[in-house]
């Protein structure tokens, strides 16, 4: 029998293992794009400094960064951010959990699909800002309203993807589990959930972006704290540098959250990438 496996391949010598790294030119890497950001910021700086831009609405980049630094040191920005992130994660996790549960039910039981599919399709296309006023009527303008908004908007991408994932579980895997007497709740935990996890993660990633958006919107409409509130009130108070600092904060938060998500996804779904790569051969 031919037991050929990749890990048994002869170990590479150190010179071979290290590719010719120093020959990779910077414009063939991601540093090219980082350079573009730096260039654009410099253009901004120069344009604002030379008065080619209205200085009231376009302060110099250096002034914005200085204001940003002050706001971080004073603790004002971290405080607003903490309020926002708390709401966002509370809503996000509720939405994800409900989305997975409903998606599982709909994918697994025809009854729940028939029951819930129409209402899903009616509610899903409504842009979340549209029902914000209704939610305010019922929940007021406190955290409960924001958490609800975020949870509700995060729910659908996870629900739809979980449903697709459950439907696409290989019937042979399910039959295999059945031959070992694994049925019911055990089957969901041990086979259906792990097998559809790549889909669930796709939905969770979409929902993360949605949660961030809905957090900002609901804070702008009605709040007395949070980063969305901060940006809008800075603009209304003509604190333009502070307003930009708030937007930059969101850029950083969005970037960090996405990197964190990808890192977790790569860890949990390592098997999936290997498996799909093998399937393609």
């Amino acid at each position, binding site marked *: 029998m031919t037991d050929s496996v*990749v890990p048994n391949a002869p170990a590479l010598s150190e010179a071979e293992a290290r590719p010719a790294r120093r020959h990779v030119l910077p414009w063939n890497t991601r540093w090219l794009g980082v350079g573009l950001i730096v260039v654009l910021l410099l253009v901004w700086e120069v344009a604002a400094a030379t008065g080619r831009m209205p200085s009231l609405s376009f302060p110099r980049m250096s002034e914005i960064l200085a204001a940003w630094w002050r706001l971080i040191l004073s603790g004002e920005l971290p405080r607003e951010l903490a309020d926002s992130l708390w709401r966002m994660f509370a809503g996000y996790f509720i939405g994800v959990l409900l989305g997975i549960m409903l998606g599982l039910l709909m994918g697994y039981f025809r009854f729940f699909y028939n029951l819930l599919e129409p209402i899903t399709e009616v509610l899903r296309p409504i842009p979340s800002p549209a029902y914000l006023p209704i939610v305010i009527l019922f929940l007021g303008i406190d955290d409960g309203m924001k958490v609800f908004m975020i949870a509700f908007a995060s729910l659908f991408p996870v629900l739809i993807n979980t449903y697709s994932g459950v439907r696409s579980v290989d019937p*042979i895997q399910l039959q295999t589990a059945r031959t*070992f*007497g694994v049925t019911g709740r055990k089957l969901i935990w*041990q086979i259906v959930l792990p*097998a559809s996890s790549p889909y669930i993660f796709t939905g969770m990633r979409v929902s993360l972006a949605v949660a961030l958006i809905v957090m900002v919107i609901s804070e702008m409409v009605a709040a007395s704290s949070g980063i969305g509130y901060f940006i809008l009130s800075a603009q209304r108070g003509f604190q333009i540098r502070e307003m930009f600092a708030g937007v930059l904060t969101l850029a950083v938060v969005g970037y960090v959250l996405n990197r964190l998500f990808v890192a977790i996804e790569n860890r949990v779904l390592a098997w999936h990438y290997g*498996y799909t790569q093998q399937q393609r051969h």
Partner: protein
Amino acid sequence: MTDTSRQFLRVCSVRKVFGAAGGTTVALNGVELEITKGSFVSIVGPSGCGKSTLLQIIAGLIDATSGAVFLADREVKGPPPGALYVFQQYTRSLFPWKTVERNVAFGLENRETLSRIDVAARRREIIGLVKLTGFEHHYPWQLSGGMQQRVAIARALACRPEVLLMDEPFSAVDALTRAGLQELLRSLWRELGLTVIFVTHDVDEGVYLSTRVVALTRAPGTVAADLTIDLPHPRDQIATRALPQYLDYRARLLAQLFADEGLVAGEVA
């Protein structure tokens, strides 16, 4: 009845009708079989003769339209604990998110109340038996096809089944790997005292492996031939396949299948 072992596995007038939009197809039409404990029975037949359907009914994966299957005098309704099924499509049957050892332990963890230490010991023993020691922490998709099918066999054997039901398990691997898997299966069958029911479209494979070969007719499937294969043990890929009795069994089964297809042996060659 005094000799119960003779009726270890009984297939009684099993009939299976599949309903489809274009009408109904009779896949199996009154199949009768009695299988002795410890035997190695191959079911051969042309593709579409319902041999896989029969195996799935025996495994309790699908229900017969009428008739019944009894395993150790208990009627089969749903997968019976004493019988395990090995699928042809090993790449789809193994769980890609579990390592080799976690796949092998899947049945053990779910079927039996064993301590962690016992599970680990049994797992190690079985992985050694199918010669996969050293690959415990690999994922199935990192292994060759033959090794993956050995993982699937190990996963079934870990539960110490009395019956192993195999649906064309070696049809997706190359000839050399297949010969290796055949030898492994024969030695496991002899060492562990298993009863094996082995579905294949390959008459040679059926004769070489088995103590008995059952040929089904094209759908609606019924038993067309039932031969006891009286070849000496241990068998050898080259010597056994050259024995006159081996060639005789093979010729009789092929003649049966060709006649069923309406072919004359001369035309086929």
